[in-house]
């Protein structure tokens, strides 16, 4: 495996991570956020395995016909990536089920629409006018009377 091939792989893995993070931050759709998360995860896994690669080595599995002392690639990053992939699918399943629950509750997957509906709900429950702008939530109007358990929700929605 040439230097060029390894460098290509490194750039590919880093681009995957960058694309994943970019999509994670920029997407408004919950489903696409889950997809972007899995992309970033694939890139990170590739990077970890790439670190453990050793030139002119065989896979860390002893076969019949090979010498016991053959050079092998590093098994420890591989074991860690094995764990990471399996946990990643658990995270993905949980995120998808949360997205389904949010869709059932608010009827949309778009984060902005969901946030505005959530704020309307909260304002309705608090008996106040809904906020007109996302960036100035309580601009120019008196703060609604908030009971103690609602306080946490309101903070979460505005922050």
């Amino acid at each position, binding site marked *: *495996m*040439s230097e*060029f*091939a390894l460098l*290509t*792989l490194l*750039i*590919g893995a880093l*681009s*995957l991570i960058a*694309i*994943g993070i*970019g*999509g994670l931050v*920029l*997407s*408004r*759709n919950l*489903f*696409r956020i889950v*997809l*972007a998360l*899995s*992309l970033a995860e*694939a890139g990170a*896994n*590739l990077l970890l*395995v*790439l670190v*453990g*690669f050793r030139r002119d*080595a*065989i*896979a*860390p*599995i002893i076969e019949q016909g090979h010498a016991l002392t053959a050079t092998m*690639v590093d098994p420890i990053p*591989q074991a860690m*990536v*094995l764990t990471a*992939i*399996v946990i*990643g*699918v658990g995270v*993905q*399943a949980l995120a*998808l*089920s949360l*997205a*389904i629950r949010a*869709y059932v509750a608010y009827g949309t*997957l*778009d984060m902005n629409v969901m946030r505005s509906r959530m704020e309307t709900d909260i304002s309705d429950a608090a008996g106040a006018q809904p906020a007109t702008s996302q960036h100035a939530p309580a601009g120019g109007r008196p703060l609604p009377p908030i009971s103690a358990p609602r306080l946490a929700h309101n903070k979460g929605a505005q922050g």
Partner: protein
Amino acid sequence: MAWADLIILIMVVLVLAGAGAALFLENLLGAAVATALVSLGVSVFFVILRAPDVALTEAAVGAGLSGLLLALAAKRLGLWRIEVQQDSEDAGDSSC
């Protein structure tokens, strides 16, 4: 070794195109298929990097289980309706 360079180059192109498609496709089911493509390319990378264990896991999880999960979630979310809706209204679920 020329074969590794060639296959790695093609697969990197495939993976990056799949990742871009996953972010920029209007249809979310198409985006889900694109992530399956990304895990396909990554699985071939793992084989070339002499990690058959990880390649097996990525193939099983990325191609099979993740596809199943995304498909079932897409069904519950009603994502197949988007294709029909696109004719009437253009403001779909574009991400960026």
